[in-house]
């Protein structure tokens, strides 16, 4: 009896230790998500698919969806490639490499609102640093950047990439550090050049890291909101009106929680579809 009680306690311990974290996840992640789906399937207080019908018949929604997909098609691969290259660079065993790691990681430590304000000042159409630089050095006419419908989205991509790459770099760095150096030594003895080593050894061996970075980066990028809210408010000409911002507008500006929730449901489904394919693709060779 005493023995089984001790066994029970031993079994319960991990759950007890997990409880605080689980409680937070339940209250702040799972519950809002379920509530969001419930709200999305309501129309004027009753269960209905009408909110989705209204949403899907709105041109603005499809435009926002396209902006979100377009932005992520460029931003996520760009961030993954850059992070990996940065990790390769800072993985070199040279003197003072720690300083470089810190420098590359520095943008991560700056809060997004501060980064957004700095970038909007830097890329200001009125005597901003970037315009002064390209004007005086290359004689290029002042650019609109965040005020130009053709440039604003890519400026947000640049800002988010600058801010995010250092973070993902650290995961890749951990992945690279985990590769046994004897594998590289063996490759060297076999006469593999740097490119072959990279392609045939490094990239396959950090596949699990890549999968994690891909999934996490995709989720974060699809939910990107702060730069749009702080700098462009979805403009100019709705060119930066990503779905997350559209959901925010519906819920908190127009007071339509049901439409905001329905938009968020679409976002969640979009993330799930992308992540599913990412898992499929990366596990194919296994």
């Amino acid at each position: 009896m005493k023995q089984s009680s001790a066994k029970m306690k031993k079994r319960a311990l991990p759950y007890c230790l997990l409880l605080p974290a689980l409680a937070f996840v339940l209250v702040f992640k799972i519950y809002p998500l379920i509530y969001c789906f419930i709200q999305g399937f309501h129309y004027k207080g009753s269960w209905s698919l009408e909110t989705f019908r209204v949403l899907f018949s709105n041109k603005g929604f499809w435009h926002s969806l396209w902006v979100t997909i377009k932005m992520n098609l460029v931003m996520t691969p760009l961030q993954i490639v850059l992070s990996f290259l940065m990790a390769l660079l800072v993985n070199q065993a040279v003197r003072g490499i720690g300083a470089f790691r810190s420098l590359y990681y520095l943008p991560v430590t700056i809060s997004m609102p501060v980064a957004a304000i700095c970038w909007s000042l830097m890329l200001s159409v009125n005597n901003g640093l970037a315009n002064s630089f390209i004007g005086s050095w290359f004689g290029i006419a002042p650019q609109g950047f965040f005020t130009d419908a053709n440039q604003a989205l890519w400026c947000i991509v640049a800002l988010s990439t600058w801010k995010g790459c250092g973070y993902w770099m650290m995961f890749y760095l951990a992945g690279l550090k985990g590769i046994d150096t004897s594998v590289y030594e063996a490759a060297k003895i076999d006469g593999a050049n740097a490119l072959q080593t990279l392609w045939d050894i490094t990239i396959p061996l950090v596949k699990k890291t890549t999968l994690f970075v891909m999934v996490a980066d995709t989720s974060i990028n699809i939910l990107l909101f702060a730069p749009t809210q702080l700098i462009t408010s979805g403009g100019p000409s709705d060119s930066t009106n990503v779905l997350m911002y559209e959901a925010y507008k519906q819920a908190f500006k127009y007071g339509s929680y049901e439409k905001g929730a329905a938009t968020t449901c679409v976002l969640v489904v979009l993330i799930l579809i992308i992540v599913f394919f990412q898992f499929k693709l990366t596990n194919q060779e296994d």
Partner: protein
Amino acid sequence: MKRQVISVLMGVSLLAVMVSGCGKKGDGADDGGSEGGKTLKILTHYDAAFAEAAKKYEEETGVKVEIEQTAYENIGDTLEVVLSSQSDEYDLIMADGPNTSAYVSRGYLEPLTEYFTEEEKESFSPELLKQGTVNDEFYAAPLGDSSTVLYYNKNLLKQAGIEVDWSQYTGESRITWEELVDLAKKAVAELDPDGSKGIYGIEIGQVSSVYQMNLLANSMGGKNISDDGKTVKGVIDSDEWKDAIAWYQGLVEEGVFSKGVSGLETYNNFYAGKCVFEWMTADSYTFCLDADLTEEDFGWTYQPCFEGHEDEVATGCGNWALGVSAFSNNKEEAGKFVNYMTYGEGNDIFLPISGMGPNTSARYTDELTEKNPVLEIAKYEAENTAFVRAVTPAFNEYSAALSTMWEDIRNGADIEEAMESTVEQIDSALGEYNES
């Protein structure tokens, strides 16, 4: 064993904190706070003005008013979150005049009929009363009124060698926008010929917002919404609107009006002597003084008119109004406080501190105009040229779509395309409200 006990305690205490955090403010608790009296709560950006009036109110009635300060631009979003969850957090609701209709349609406001006599209601300016009334029921009492005025930087004009006899302009005989643009171009050419000093000709205080931008089209004869309030088609894409928009966009391209500068920054540019003319609200006089400017530095005159449209001048009006939350547990006390703050003595305390114009002509006292002389112009405009913003339950959608359009126009968007898309967005939102 010790580890197990600690982890169980941690888990239980965490859940307890969470569960207690989920409780509503009024659940089982007495909302009364001040010596047996009630406590009312409000979210506002006019905290100093409210605090002074609330202090007097508490002395007289024993009802305490707790003031939660926030930035002006956060009020709408915060209230939307709080009220949509039917929270009793705030008893008193600050609504920007045109939002009243939207709040009523969502069931956020309680009628004020029993807290105001007919005589008291009718003492408010007709356009303010109209904004606070929905389906013949009075929901939001105006704290004050607003107006739009042209301010000029005396020092910059002097440096540019431009002399203008501002005293010649009156409500009946104003400077025209065309004349003003000429003056601005001349001044900037003299003060900042290569643009390196960042001096602007004319700035607009609430740039890209419907409050001020629509007045350009209104001053050419354009309306804000159809007479039945059900569409903007044929209204905001009318010739009057097209002319106003084309005029504005042309001057942004020429650099007379700024681009990529927020409303708040335009104010700061004026305070910092980086802008020759600023078209802003009458209460901006107090902001100028707060920014250490004196009447030696700046002057003011009536809002300009367009040539050929001298008799169609439309100036801004409407301001923040006060209502009672439909979810308040202290509706009666809140209703009485609304009366005190908008009709009663509280309003006399509130106005000079906030710098707001009065909610009725009768309240324009010498004391008030002495504190803010710009209010003399505001009084004239309120009686003669005030133009009410669109009254519609879809005002939030209307305002957001039009603000985006004005900002897009400023950034060089195609006028026809911008108008078409805006009409579609607003009419789609209006359609949903029309259906319900």
